């Protein structure tokens, strides 16, 4: 499998001087492709990158040993082309494919095709992805493993069937209102409808089903009680091919906007030792029952009565895996590679799992996205000018953006993950606050104003986590008002810059700026009038 000639008697699996693979292909782009490449470099694994026309000169392409063009910019013509990706792996002599997250990472058909092509898929087995990709199947699996699932139905709900209205209405009454109609193949809030009364149910079923069919090619929907307010807490799992699974701590991802995570931290604030132990055990039970191996994440809701409800399993590396790495000292991608190469769970991973029950460090991450937080986080692609990322003690930044890079409109707007780690939550937030203050980005609008406001919010700073909920953004922040305030300062700064006739005036010059003086006040006029 590794393609490396070993001396007789030397086990390829156990000798860490020999890489888990000789060469792997990374079927992804952006920061996650670069992040995986870095681990490959650390392990001595050669890397093949793939790219679309929009990413021809991208950082992940230059960082790889070889790169293969997939096609035009749209994902359907490039990063979702399983056939071209597998061809590229075979043509370049890769042993394995890492899918990253998003794109093809949770498509069982892709995992299966990779294996059928004689390559290793770095992720859970195709059958497990299949079983968990269907949320109904995942609910049944979890319930059978004695893991509490959100009250709801376990079979596809009848849609547009007058004869079955009575049954589904009775089921809805049993669950209680308000409830959610959710897509079995869903994710990211698509194919989801909130229903407050039984009268709305038939229309919600139809709407959610057609949206799910359009988005996922599968119109199956089911009913689930709306647990709200609730915190979103997930457990990082790592399992080997021999059925051993450990929990590497939990992450609180409660700050969301339209079911998209904005902030992730570990450990979850305010959990008792017993709650944490029970949560990890439930996640491990669900993973074992589903036959999961490699890296995956079990997601739960945590309600105001301090009960956990199983939500779903993501059978892949998560965007937010970095915070877990910061507190565990593990390289999860390296663990993934060793597990995919057939090694049992490492001692490092087992020790980290034991430590995760009594956390002694706290890590927190915010996502920097090319979005305008004053316009409902609308996408704001474009060409980046200045790109200055933070560094220093306790700071980690995962990004693939360089100054002058273009953020293409074709893919996810997330352009950087800014992480901070310290001994406790407040200290970690203080490090993150400092890190965010070091960031300078020009050329595009980003979510930086929101991120900076968040780490200064008194309620968010509360240690017990009581204020965290999936409704946080709507309740706590007015982007338009914040932008209006900043505009005043910008106008004054621009006026001064115009007077100074400097080609570039940066913050280093600030002490000399007389922009608060009366002279400048007179210089700022109102225009247009």
């Amino acid at each position: 499998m590794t393609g490396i000639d070993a001396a007789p008697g030397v086990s390829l699996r156990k000798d860490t001087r020999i890489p888990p693979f000789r060469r792997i292909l990374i079927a992804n782009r952006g920061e996650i492709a670069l992040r995986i490449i870095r681990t490959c470099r650390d392990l001595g694994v050669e890397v093949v990158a793939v790219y679309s026309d929009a990413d021809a000169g991208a950082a992940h392409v230059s960082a790889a040993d070889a790169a293969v063009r997939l096609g035009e910019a749209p994902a359907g013509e490039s990063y979702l082309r399983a056939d071209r990706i597998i061809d590229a792996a075979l043509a370049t002599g890769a042993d394995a494919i890492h899918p990253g997250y998003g794109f093809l990472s949770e498509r069982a058909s892709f995992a299966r095709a990779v294996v059928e092509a004689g390559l290793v898929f770095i992720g859970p087995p195709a059958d497990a992805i299949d079983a968990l990709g269907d949320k109904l199947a995942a609910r049944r699996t979890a319930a059978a493993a004695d893991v509490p699932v959100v009250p709801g139905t376990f079979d596809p709900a009848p849609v547009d069937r007058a004869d079955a209205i009575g049954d589904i209405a009775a089921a809805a009454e049993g669950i209680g209102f308000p409830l959610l109609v959710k897509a079995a193949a869903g994710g990211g809030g698509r194919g989801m409808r909130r229903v407050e009364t039984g009268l709305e149910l038939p229309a919600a079923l139809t709407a959610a089903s057609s949206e799910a069919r359009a988005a996922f090619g599968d119109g199956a929907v089911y009913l689930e009680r709306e647990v709200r307010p609730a915190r979103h807490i997930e457990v990082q799992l790592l399992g080997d091919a021999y059925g051993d699974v450990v929990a590497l701590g939990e992450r609180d991802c409660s700050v969301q906007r339209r079911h998209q995570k904005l902030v992730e931290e570990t450990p979850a604030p305010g959990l008792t030792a017993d709650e944490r132990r029970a949560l990890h055990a439930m996640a491990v039970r669900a993973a074992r029952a589903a036959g999961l191996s490699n890296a995956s994440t079990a997601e739960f809701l945590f309600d105001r009565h301090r009960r956990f409800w199983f939500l779903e399993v993501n059978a892949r590396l998560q965007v937010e895996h970095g915070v877990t790495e910061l507190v565990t000292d593990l390289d999860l991608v390296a663990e993934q590679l060793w597990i995919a190469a057939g090694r049992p769970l490492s001692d490092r991973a087992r020790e980290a799992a034991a430590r995760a029950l009594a956390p002694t460090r706290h890590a927190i991450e915010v996502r920097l996205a090319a979005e305008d937080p004053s316009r409902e986080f609308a996408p704001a692609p474009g060409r980046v000018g200045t790109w200055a990322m933070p560094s220093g003690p306790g700071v980690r930044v995962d990004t693939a953006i360089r100054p002058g890079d273009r953020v293409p409109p074709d893919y996810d707007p997330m352009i950087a993950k800014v992480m901070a780690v310290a001994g406790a939550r407040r200290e970690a937030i203080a490090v993150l606050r400092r890190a965010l203050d070091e960031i300078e980005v020009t050329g595009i609008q980003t979510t930086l104003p929101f991120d900076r406001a968040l780490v200064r919010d008194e309620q968010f700073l509360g240690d017990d986590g009581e204020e965290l909920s999936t409704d946080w953004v709507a309740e706590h922040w007015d982007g338009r008002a914040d932008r209006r305030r900043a505009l005043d300062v910008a106008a004054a700064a621009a006026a001064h810059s115009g007077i100074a006739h400097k080609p570039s005036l940066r913050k280093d010059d600030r002490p000399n700026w007389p922009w608060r003086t009366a002279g400048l006040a007179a210089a700022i006029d109102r225009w247009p009038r």
Partner: protein
Amino acid sequence: MRKVRVSSAPSTAHADDPTFALPSDGPVPAGHLVVQGPIGPPGSDGKRPIEVVVDGWRFVLVVEDDARAALRERATRSGDDVGRGGGALEIRAIIPGRVASVAVTPGDTVEAGQTLLAVEAMKMQNELRAPRGGTVSRVAASPGATVEVGDVLVVLE
């Protein structure tokens, strides 16, 4: 001190921004202000787009020399004076450039603020608007024509 004026560029997405107020007194928090400087050469109209990032909010603001703005206003106002004197109001070019589009024809009734035509210079379009309501008696410019500062473009009765 040389005076300047600041306006938000047409390229910013927010049409509803209020006109600018002075910043309140007090220090600027560290690390929260980035002035990128001109993001292009000054236009032939003397306006310069400047990129400013405050607390992560990105603005492209147009800075214009105050003396130049005053000249431009006089160009319009001189027509205004003529208008008051003789009943007709001449709208003159305030920047040199090329007529990009003409929105009115003789005989049209226009309201104050209505766009009459646009002059393009350095890839930036500058719209000329009616300073008051009236009837268009003459259109002296056609699309594509090159104009100099002070040229009569439209006459309002």
